[in-house]
């Protein structure tokens, strides 16, 4: 039974989880949200590494014109699976990893509402991801249709590889996994909050996950339906997207982007929430404008459902002013969040361990992605940039700047909670600097290449003036990113070889997960502090300090 107390748990009480060795059967059979979260994280990082290797091969291919490291068909497969894996097998499940681990802890619950369903979500995601990648094992090769899978390119006369069918089946499985996971998150947040935790006392990460989960519940059924239609068309002769039989290929684009644009926010909003957790801790201040931050999250979530067709400007089949306007408007609540983060830092006692470095790096890189997003939200400019490297650079600035920087911030921030150990700070900072330099060097030149008209999704390009130099620079940057990931893996291995010494709250943080041991016990809490604000652990620390001071004054 959870009890309420003002006294933080002692460091010495840190819990050693059951089966400290390799408890393989325990992991396979687990329904514990923390283990499931860690499995999500490891699997997502595995897919990230695989997709990263594909990116390196593509950048090597594009380093100079005329180089043919892979065939054109192979290149098509690489960019298809790279995009799919990064979006749906890495970024989305990484959101699920953080959410699984943190939501029950942040709301003061013992576990998810549906622990077995939670485990099923993970296994469906893992098997779905493996089915997508298994396209590399079939003779005809992996899917070659781009991660957007537009018909008619993805229908049988044009994509004959079995890999495309495996891509569809795999994504169906991961889609169902996402829907089941989102359902679990929403119900857990609504029904398992600790006494005293009203909606406006929830940590901003949990708020962000609530909105994200609702987005998943609306967006993923659209892509699931579209994938089933495509599968029926490829395997059973249906004609949903064939104009000569009364179908409409633009229908796929509507369904895909009704999922696809919310998907951008599905993988961004939770990490905005992560930023809402890190900036206050490393500024030693409460989050500036908590309610404005939450309302901005809700507005972004709601508006993200109304901007899908800005990806379809050049189809000529959509209303340009409507989607241009909604796309411009969505920048406003995003700007509100920037003010939240910046004003949280102003006047604070800033310190810059690795999580804070990643957080500040996120601000700059995501801002750049946001600004170039405003450019392509303008229909006349979008007509120029469509399908060029400008779009490639923009989407990486948004997705890597907005999600992956914040993901690294989250991993380095909560690593002590996950493992009971802090990452080696010099290694963690080297990871940050290598990644950031590599990221800028990789993608900045691509804006110029796009402005010059270099098209995306081609295995080669002409030796036009300036193109080769910028492509060489971009390729060097991508290998710098790869080196930074190696440094991160070394830091993790080094940390895991040390004894657990982080204690429950190494950063002096605010939300309930820092009340639990590091790593937390099986059912998370032996006690809970009273929840009278959005920062219950901070309140408990203050109360404990005052009680200590009062006790000292009472002494003769």
């Amino acid at each position, binding site marked *: 039974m959870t*009890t309420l107390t003002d006294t933080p748990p002692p460091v010495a009480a840190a819990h050693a989880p059951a089966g400290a060795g390799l408890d393989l059967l325990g992991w396979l059979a687990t329904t514990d949200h923390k283990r499931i979260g860690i499995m999500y994280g490891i699997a997502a990082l595995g897919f990230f590494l695989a997709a990263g290797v594909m990116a390196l091969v593509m950048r090597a291919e594009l380093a100079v014109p005329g180089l043919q490291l892979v065939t054109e068909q192979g290149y098509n497969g690489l960019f298809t699976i790279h995009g799919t894996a990064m979006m749906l097998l890495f970024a989305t499940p990484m959101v699920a990893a953080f959410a699984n681990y943190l939501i029950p802890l942040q709301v003061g619950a*013992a576990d998810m509402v549906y622990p*077995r369903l939670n485990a099923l979500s993970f296994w469906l995601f893992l098997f779905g991801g493996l089915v997508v990648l298994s396209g590399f094992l079939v003779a005809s090769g992996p899917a070659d249709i781009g991660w957007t899978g537009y018909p008619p390119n993805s229908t049988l006369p044009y994509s004959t590889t079995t890999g495309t069918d495996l891509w569809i089946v795999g994504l169906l499985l991961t889609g169902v996994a996402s829907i089941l996971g989102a359902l679990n998150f929403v119900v857990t947040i609504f029904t398992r*909050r600790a*006494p005293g935790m009203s909606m406006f006392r929830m940590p901003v990460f949990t708020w962000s996950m609530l909105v994200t989960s609702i987005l998943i519940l609306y967006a993923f059924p659209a892509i699931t339906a579209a994938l089933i239609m495509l599968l029926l068309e490829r395997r059973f002769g249906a004609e949903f997207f064939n104009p000569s039989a009364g179908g409409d290929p633009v229908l796929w684009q509507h369904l895909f982007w009704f999922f696809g644009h919310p998907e951008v926010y599905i993988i961004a909003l939770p990490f905005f929430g992560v930023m809402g957790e890190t900036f206050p801790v490393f500024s030693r201040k409460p989050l500036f404008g908590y309610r404005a931050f939450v309302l901005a999250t809700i507005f972004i979530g709601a508006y993200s459902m109304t901007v899908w067709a800005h990806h379809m400007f050049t189809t000529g089949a959509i209303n340009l002013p409507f989607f241009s306007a909604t796309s411009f408007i969505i920048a406003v609540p995003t700007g509100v969040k920037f003010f939240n983060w910046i004003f949280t830092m102003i006047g604070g006692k800033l310190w810059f361990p690795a999580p804070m470095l990643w957080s500040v790096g996120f601000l700059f890189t995501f801002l750049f992605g946001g600004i170039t997003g405003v450019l392509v939200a303008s229909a006349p400019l979008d007509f120029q940039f469509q399908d060029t490297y400008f779009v490639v650079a923009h989407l990486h600035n948004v997705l890597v700047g907005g999600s992956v920087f914040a993901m690294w911030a989250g991993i380095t921030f909560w690593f002590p909670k996950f493992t009971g150990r802090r990452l080696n700070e010099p290694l963690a900072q080297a990871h940050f600097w290598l990644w950031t330099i590599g990221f800028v060097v990789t993608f900045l030149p691509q804006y110029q290449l796009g402005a010059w008209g270099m098209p995306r999704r081609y295995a080669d390009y002409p030796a036009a003036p300036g193109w080769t130099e910028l492509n060489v620079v971009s390729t060097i940057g991508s290998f710098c990113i790869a080196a930074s990931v190696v440094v991160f893996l070394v830091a993790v291995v080094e940390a895991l070889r040390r004894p657990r010494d982080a204690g429950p709250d190494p950063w002096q943080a605010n939300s309930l997960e820092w009340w639990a041991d590091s790593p937390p016990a099986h059912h998370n809490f032996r006690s809970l502090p009273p929840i009278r604000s959005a920062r219950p652990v901070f309140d408990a620390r203050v109360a404990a300090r005052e009680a200590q001071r009062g006790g000292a004054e009472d002494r003769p």
Partner: protein
Amino acid sequence: MIRRLLLLDHPQETRFFLFVGAFGLALATVYWFLTYEVAGTVLLLGFGAGAGLLGVGLYRSRPGAVRAGADAARRDADASEAGRDGGDASAVDQVTAGGEDVPGGGAGGVDTPFSTPLGRLPGETLAPLALGLGMALGLTAVVFGPWLLVAGLVPLAWGAWTWLTAARDELRAAVRQEAPETAPDLAPDLVADTGER
């Protein structure tokens, strides 16, 4: 009156869904009259109607749930005044004071108006893994042929059976715990350990 119009006497959860639903329906209307485009209108209507219906459901469930929550918070308050840990006092204060954090009439059962009892947490089980494997094999049969469907049926059936029987046993055990005299007879081992490997 204004509080009622703005639904301030309803839980934040209810207002959240009603707002999102109203937003989606309004956008669907605007979109239709601007474009007369069917696919997008249907998608926006689905978005608005889904959230709206959920909001209406929460709106209708409000009186009983919030009253029950408020009653529970008052009982906690009485208990804490009788010498227990006073941690729930904030919730009770909010019930009675009508302060800022008292959506829908309260906190406590009021901060968390849709809170449900914890129930039993399952032990370790291979059922989700088996079910997931069965579903993956079964679906991949569309690509490689029906033999995969047959291979997938075995883990699927075992996983589903194990899952459902464990859930049934947990439910019976929970019922028995709450009302021992009315619960159906249960095998002692099912009550003692519902975690299945």
